[in-house]
């Protein structure tokens, strides 16, 4: 061999450093391009985020994309609340003494499969349901699709957080004569930083996903009219407009990407901050 073992150690050390640097550089590059290209459009005319779209929006880009901003909020907000309730309940069921170990294992297996299921499958599923009940694509079904998409993600994070809560919390509450439900509440409280971080993470994933809402919310180019009217979200708008031949329409996609990435980064930052704040409920103090 040309390399002795020390040279090889140095070589692979540098390779590892290089790989990490490459990943970080590419990622920062993606963020930088988004912020630069989108920010240039957005900051010269911030009003496009709060202006309703004009009548020929997809062709000429008149007006703004308030419809997508509102659509994102009205779809992902309720969906997050619904799947938060379901996810926390499922995680409690799996972690506390409600089920046998075997059954919990089985549920975990199904959750893992759901977690790995491509989002487009949820979109197709909800669309199939829409056709079956004879409804039309609308804000409501967008909420359903996003909620299904977020459920396994949030359950996984919450489950992990509850698992890392100290066993002593459970033992102490049972020792005081608490019921299973009261014990579960105390466990959630002890794991609150992780639970909150997981829910915000689910929210961030939901607000960034396009595949689930592509066929279910209706890809509307008008302001959302009501829960059973078509709507759209920011990722769908970016997807639809990114390849437009009209530079004005394309620039709206860049500005929407800027708004989206700022929102996602802010959410993740907020989750870290909240996790720190709620750390006082965790036994043993302030670490996240």
């Amino acid at each position: 061999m040309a390399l002795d073992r020390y040279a090889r150690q140095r070589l692979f050390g540098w390779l590892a450093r290089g790989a990490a640097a490459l990943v970080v550089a590419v990622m920062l590059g993606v963020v930088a391009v988004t912020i630069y290209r989108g920010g240039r459009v957005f900051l010269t005319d911030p009003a496009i985020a709060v202006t309703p779209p004009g009548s020929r929006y997809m062709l000429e880009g008149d007006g703004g994309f308030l419809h997508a901003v509102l659509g994102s909020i009205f779809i992902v907000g309720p969906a997050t609340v619904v799947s938060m309730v379901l996810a926390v309940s499922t995680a409690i069921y799996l972690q506390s003494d409600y089920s046998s170990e075997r059954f919990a294992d089985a549920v975990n297996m199904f959750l893992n499969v759901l977690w790995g299921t491509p989002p487009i499958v949820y979109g197709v599923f909800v669309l199939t349901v829409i056709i079956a009940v004879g409804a039309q694509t609308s804000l409501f079904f967008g909420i359903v699709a996003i909620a299904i998409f977020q459920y396994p993600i949030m359950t996984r994070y919450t489950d992990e957080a509850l698992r890392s809560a100290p066993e002593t919390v459970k033992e102490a509450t049972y020792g005081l004569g608490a019921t299973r439900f009261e014990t579960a509440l105390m466990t959630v409280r002890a794991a609150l930083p992780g639970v909150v971080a997981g829910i915000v993470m689910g929210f961030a994933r939901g607000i960034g996903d396009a595949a689930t809402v592509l066929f279910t919310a209706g890809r509307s180019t008008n302001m959302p009219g009501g829960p059973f009217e078509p709507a759209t979200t920011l990722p769908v708008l970016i997807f639809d407009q990114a390849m437009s031949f009209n530079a004005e329409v394309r620039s709206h996609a860049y500005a929407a990407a800027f708004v989206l990435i700022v929102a996602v980064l802010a959410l993740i930052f907020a989750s870290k901050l909240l996790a720190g704040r709620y750390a006082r409920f965790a036994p043993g103090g302030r670490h996240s």
Partner: protein
Amino acid sequence: MAGSTGTESATDGSGRLDRRLLVERLSSYWLGGAGYFAIALFALIVLTLLYQSLPLLSEYSVVQMLTTSNWDPAQNEFGFLPAIVGTVYVTLLSMAMGTPIAILAAIYIAEYAEGRTKTLVSSLIDVLAAIPSVIFGLVALIVVVPLVGDYVAPAFGSDTTGLGIFTVSLVMAIVVTPFMISLSVESLEALPDELRESSLGVGATKWETIRSVLLRAAGPGIFSAILLGFGRVFGATIVPAMLIGGQTQLPDSLFATGQTLPTLIVNDFGELMSLPLTQSALIFVGVMLVVVVWLFNFGAMLVRRRLQRRWQY
């Protein structure tokens, strides 16, 4: 005790206990339901999709559809082969590009980085794993597509606009790398320090320790990280739909335009919804995606168990 001091506090106390027990009983019904919800949801999705793809399955044989390459729903020709080949190309190519880098970067974070650098790099990668894939698609349209079209493809003697299988693979590799890194780092950091100490103690270099001890001990975890990344690329929809060019043909080179299974759904669903057989065909694509992801998960579980037994420390 309460009984001797007066009936009022006694009934009060038992009333509170009753209420607590009632809450306990009601909540256990609710939580039990939530536990079954995961299974019910999965079953509902699979059964609905299967039921809706029956019209197609009753008319054509599965083997025939999977092995022919004529995709023309308007003429009732449903050959999934081009999309399947496209999916396999994209998945293999982006894993080939992403996996080595992901493992090396995970090794850097878990074994080399220290202190503030470590916190910074690892939290940066965690944050970046949450960036929406549509943004990667958009940035790729601005940066990667011209790059591939003007420089990379001509260097390999191909002539393209930049949209195609290679571009999708490159971008998908970028999308899944942070995801694989954070899972691999987790399993490397779960290893006890005694492993490192004893290996270094018998004279191994740091790299020898990493290669023959740590990667082996963390092997099952890293392996399942890679398989989960595989599943991600396999089911990715938005990035391929933006970058693959959307032509349903057998790709003749790595730079050719093509189609993956998920983009087949995106590109054909809207216009062809009125034809029941086409609708059924696209829902069948959904069934294939679920089945393959399921097989992956199941296979990963089996292999992980085997490796755990074999690579014990």
